[in-house]
């Protein structure tokens, strides 16, 4: 990492899909190496849009996206991948007509000679992929597709990994495995930002988290602090988060 700032720094980001309609209205977050940062918030708060804007998929109207101190807002996704960023979208995250192996090959598209070596590492992290390699991605279940999408992102050995609802569609056992794996990826040195609806689990595994509301970062703190913050519980977690955390 260069410079003294955090690895990823988003400052006062304003972004949206349609002219004149801003989804993000001044959103700021930071995330550092070996840090797992969670983004939670109500439906329509702009959580997915934030990840897409960082990854150059939604036009940024003002504000900054700094990667190791360097401005990368509005850069195209392929250039961001070359600089170490990877993104796993919420849905439509595999190429259905391609096999799992071909999907993973897209992850080393920028340097194909690395495929075999990277595949070994990714299979070590996601062992279920091994027996799926020959299957057509379109024939896989929703949860299996999530694994393939995560595998493809890891194939590029990112330094910043953006995950949009990695637990969606996974069985409880698989969700917990996924969360613990994400934690391992973070501990291996990667800067990980995840958007999650399973807020209780998200706050349990995150180092820090932001609560987004109406396109702004409304609250921010360690996972531990936010789980117990009465305002966050009332606005966002509901009694679900409180009661289950109390029981745990």
């Amino acid at each position, binding site marked *: 990492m260069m410079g003294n700032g955090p690895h990823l720094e988003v400052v006062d980001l304003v972004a949206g899909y349609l002219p004149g309609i801003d989804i993000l209205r001044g959103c700021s977050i930071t995330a550092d190496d070996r840090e797992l940062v969670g983004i939670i918030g109500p439906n329509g708060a702009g959580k997915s849009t934030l990840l897409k804007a960082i990854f150059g998929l939604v036009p940024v109207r003002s504000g900054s996206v700094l990667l190791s101190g360097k401005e990368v807002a509005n850069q195209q996704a392929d250039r961001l991948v070359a600089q170490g960023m990877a993104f796993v979208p919420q849905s439509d995250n595999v190429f259905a007509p391609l096999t799992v192996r071909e999907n993973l090959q897209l992850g080393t598209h920028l340097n194909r000679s690395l495929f075999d070596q990277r595949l070994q590492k990714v299979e070590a992290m996601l062992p279920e992929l091994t027996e799926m390699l020959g299957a057509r991605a379109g024939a896989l279940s929703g949860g299996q597709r999530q694994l393939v999408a995560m595998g493809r992102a890891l194939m590029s050995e990112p330094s910043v990994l953006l995950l949009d609802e990695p637990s*969606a569609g996974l069985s409880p056992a698989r969700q917990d495995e996924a969360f613990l794996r994400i934690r391992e990826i973070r501990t291996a040195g990667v800067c990980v930002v995840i958007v999650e609806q399973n807020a209780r689990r998200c706050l349990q595994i995150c180092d820090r988290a932001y609560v987004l509301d109406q396109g702004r970062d409304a609250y921010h703190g360690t996972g531990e602090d936010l789980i117990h913050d009465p305002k966050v519980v009332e606005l966002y977690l509901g009694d*679900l988060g409180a009661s289950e955390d109390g029981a745990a």
Partner: protein
Amino acid sequence: MTAVRHAEDPILVAEGVHRHFGGVTAVDVERIEVPRGQITALIGPNGAGKTTLFNCLTGFDAADAGTWTFDGRAMAGLVRHKVARAGMVRTFQLTRVLGKLTVMENMLLGAAQPGEKFSRALVKPWWKAARESEIQHAEELLVRFKLDAKRDDYAASLSGGQRKLLEMARALMARPRLLMLDEPMAGVNPALVQSLLDHIAELPSQGVSVVFVEHDMHVVKTIADWVVVMAEGKVVAEGEPGPTLANPAVIDAYLGAHHDVDLRAIIREREGSAS
């Protein structure tokens, strides 16, 4: 309810339903019953065949074999819109809303359409009142699903979670007798989950039976009267939620060892010993 294996009068009974993709058997269900007037959860590991079973039963996919009856009526081979018109209405894990229509237009598409009959369509007074009552019904549902502020926005402008809500609300517009929800709460924020659960829990008293696929065990425990567990295409366990979710085989295959553990403890243990 005591441990009666099934209600005497199930609303949906399927037998011998089989579906394979190439060499992979996705569904191989000997018999499954959905109790009438109750809420049934269909759970199981990823790839267990839950969604494929939904697809077969609702005409979105063709089963290779099998028969099933809905309210006593044989449904196998029926095309999807006829299944829906018969009263079996489903939603999708990956939402399907019509982006270039507004939220309200999406809702009205879900309604039973008196104007579909050509003769009636010609004379406005014959359908005007029905239309107005559908609009009112839609507005009530939009309030309930916290989408009323989005009434006139294009559905394409909704977030992933909001599309999920719209799809569920639209399914209710058809006034189904059996509502089939595929992961209804995935992507819906926890504060809203509770109010939606309250709404779903009321449906049986309004004559709507519900069967839903869900991975959130809090949701299953809160509203399900009956739980069916699938694995590798087969029904492997069923029963009331308490005992079924405590069944060691179900914990092993589906819930996982950590399901009631705070992950912070595991992380502390692993990373504490590493550093």
